[in-house]
């Protein structure tokens, strides 16, 4: 008669019965929930590191921005460009211009040892020499404390990330460069990008201090439009006077973060998988116990004419429900504890520190809950099958 409806109402009534009696199995149910919450929390936390690094890299680039390095160089530190090279690059077609001329900044990139706030040991902090166009080229550059350095003076401005993660980089402090004390006169932000981990100074001052003559390591430039890249690149690579590697900023930063991102993500997923398997065993234990404790009730229902389908589904539903609770708790905990948590690490590609904030993104939260549901599904499947196969007569006879 009302076949499907009857079936659904059976599922509903058995499931409701299970849910109402969860408190009788509080100990083992809580164990499963907490176990799954732990797995999800660890996975979300570790992957939020990778997401944070990725976000810092992404917010460093704009689609119309380009960077030019010497051909063969994989990072700024390895690159070298002469004063003439810089001039030819700045004259290339497609570069946007404002009242000061081409929006192209020739830069020097070195690292200096500054003590890390957390460990007190030396860290490779980037010291960047910039030219006047730098604030217009780099994303969302703005001074948030103190003032910009004076051009021609050995004054420094420090990214907010560097100021937070390393010692002695507050406004009013000074650091030793080339046997001299250089004062920090301001802090800057750059939309959460990697330059927030850097210290900036006038490139001309840095050239003198490091005896670099009129040489630079990179040119950052803004194009009139993102579509202009191919023409820009062709012009530079065709120029016989130049031996350079022009890249879109997006591609450059993706390349810079690739290794770090892959290592963190790979290890995070590996740990999550191993922990997840452990949690499946825990969930199986819980659900087998739940089924065993309810053997008589299930047998009674079957004897009353309930199908085995609704019984299977009800056990699976209970497991999934516990897992869902665990997933939400775990993801929530990770979000509360880690989202926005700031840290610094060594980027192997640039051999220098980058600062970033852990980023618990929505897709990451969803991934966490999905992982929980997978654990719940496998943890409930076999006990559910056992429940369905329970021989009615023997189960009823059990005490």
């Amino acid at each position, binding site marked *: 008669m009302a076949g499907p409806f009857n079936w659904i109402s059976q599922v509903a009534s058995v499931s409701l019965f299970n849910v109402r009696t969860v408190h009788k199995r509080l100990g083992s149910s809580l164990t499963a929930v907490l176990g799954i919450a732990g797995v999800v929390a660890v996975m979300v936390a570790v992957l939020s590191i990778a997401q944070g690094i990725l976000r810092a890299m992404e917010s460093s680039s704009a689609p119309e921005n380009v960077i030019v390095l010497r051909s063969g160089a994989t990072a700024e530190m*390895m690159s070298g460009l002469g004063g003439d090279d810089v001039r030819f690059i700045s004259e290339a077609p497609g570069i946007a211009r404002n009242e000061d001329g081409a929006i192209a900044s020739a830069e020097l990139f070195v690292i*200096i040892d500054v003590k890390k706030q957390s460990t007190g040991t030396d860290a490779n902090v980037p010291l960047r020499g910039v030219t006047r166009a730098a604030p217009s080229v780099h994303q969302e550059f703005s001074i948030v404390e103190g003032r910009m350095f004076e051009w021609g003076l050995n004054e420094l401005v420090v990214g907010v990330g560097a100021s937070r993660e390393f010692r002695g980089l507050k406004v009013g402090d000074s650091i030793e460069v080339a046997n001299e004390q250089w004062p920090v006169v301001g802090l800057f932000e750059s939309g959460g990008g990697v330059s927030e981990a850097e210290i900036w100074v006038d490139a001309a001052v840095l050239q003198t201090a490091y005896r670099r003559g009129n040489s630079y390591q990179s040119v950052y430039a803004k194009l009139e439009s993102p579509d202009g890249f191919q023409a820009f690149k062709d012009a530079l690579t065709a120029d016989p006077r130049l031996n350079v590697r022009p890249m879109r900023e997006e591609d450059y930063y993706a390349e810079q973060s690739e290794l770090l991102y892959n290592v963190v993500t790979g290890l995070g997923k590996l*740990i999550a998988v191993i922990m997840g398997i452990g949690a499946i065993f825990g969930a199986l234990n819980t659900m087998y116990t739940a089924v065993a404790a309810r053997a008589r009730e299930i047998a009674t229902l079957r004897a009353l004419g309930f199908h085995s389908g609704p019984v299977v589904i009800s056990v699976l539903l209970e497991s999934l429900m516990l897992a869902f609770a665990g997933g939400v708790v775990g993801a929530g905990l990770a979000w509360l504890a880690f989202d926005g948590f700031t*840290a610094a690490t060594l980027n192997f590609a640039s051999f220098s520190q980058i600062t970033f904030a852990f980023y618990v993104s929505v897709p990451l939260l969803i991934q966490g809950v999905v992982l929980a549901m997978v654990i719940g599904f496998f943890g409930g499947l076999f006990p559910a099958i056992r429940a369905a196969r329970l021989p009615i007569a023997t189960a009823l006879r059990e005490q």
Partner: protein
Amino acid sequence: MKYLALILSNLKRHKLRTALTMLSILVAFLLFGYLAAIRTAFTAGIDVADLDRLIVRHKVSLIQLLPASYEARMEQIEGVDSAVGQTWFGGYYQEQRNQFAQMPVKPDEFLDMFPEYVLSDDEKEAWLSTRTGAIAGRQIAERFGWQVGDKVPITASIWTKADGSQVWDFDLVGIYDAGEKGTDDTQFFFRYDYFDESRPDWGKGLVGWYTVRIDDPERSAEVSAAIDAEFANSQAETKAEPEGAFLQGFANQIGDIGFIMTSIVGMVFFTILLVAGNTMAYAVRERTNELAVLKAVGFTDSGVLGLVLGESFLLTAIGGGIGLTLAWLMVSAGDPTNGFLVTFFIPGRDMVYGVILIAVMAFVAGILPAMQAQRLRIADALRR
């Protein structure tokens, strides 16, 4: 021991539950071992750092170079035995993603300084007599399929040759083995004289950093200070520190790896403890009657306590033991990042910690139910 059979039969009573609990414990210890290997990899070399070696680098940063003349000047300093310079070459093999460590060194001095790089006498002889000769670690040679006698072109990203070319050709004259666990065998060393002749003028006569052997490890702070004083107020001031401190500082650049790993392991153990404790509690609750019978036939209270604790110990020991063994096997099979982690093994010390943890966990999981069993009053329990 005579109760072992009894404990075993108790464990066998709910085979599935016992197996599942054991498997959760197994996973916890598998992870423990694995994370220990990862932590060791990130702090590579610290455990094998030589106490009588110092690292001397430019005070401002590691990337700034020091004059090659410092070697002779340091060797004059009281307490210094010898000094060997190395320089980061930063090239790659064939493709940009094939990056690994290459350093120019003076072969004879270098091999004396680092006895942990094991090279046969023939290979050493060949290196000393071949100007373009280079040696590679076993692991990196296997990664790229190099054999002794191969020509190995390395593309420079920092050190273009004086003639403007980027490719340096080397003759692979030897493959060195790691003398002890934790020695990095992914490096590539070639001769300093070839390097210095072929590099452009701006770099000639400069090296990246020095390794200094001192006579007495007790005096490392004093000798470090003497070295730094020797070059104070010069164009290139130095920072000298023990090799272990240098490597620890470098590992700290990545982050507080130890703290992160301990947090994860702590989280894992906490949840597994819940699972194991819960199982033991069930086992006791179910068996209230039997435990009372045991007491009635003459088992003492502490005997029953021991029985339940013994069950917890056996369960954890089997699960944990298999877990640690599996971790060891998995780690021996290779690192998960394909060559990014230069050394990948579980140090003996961490294995010992693992065994201690097994005991702790077994005790914590079993003690409450065991005490419950101990306090059981025969009459009450039998009436239930």
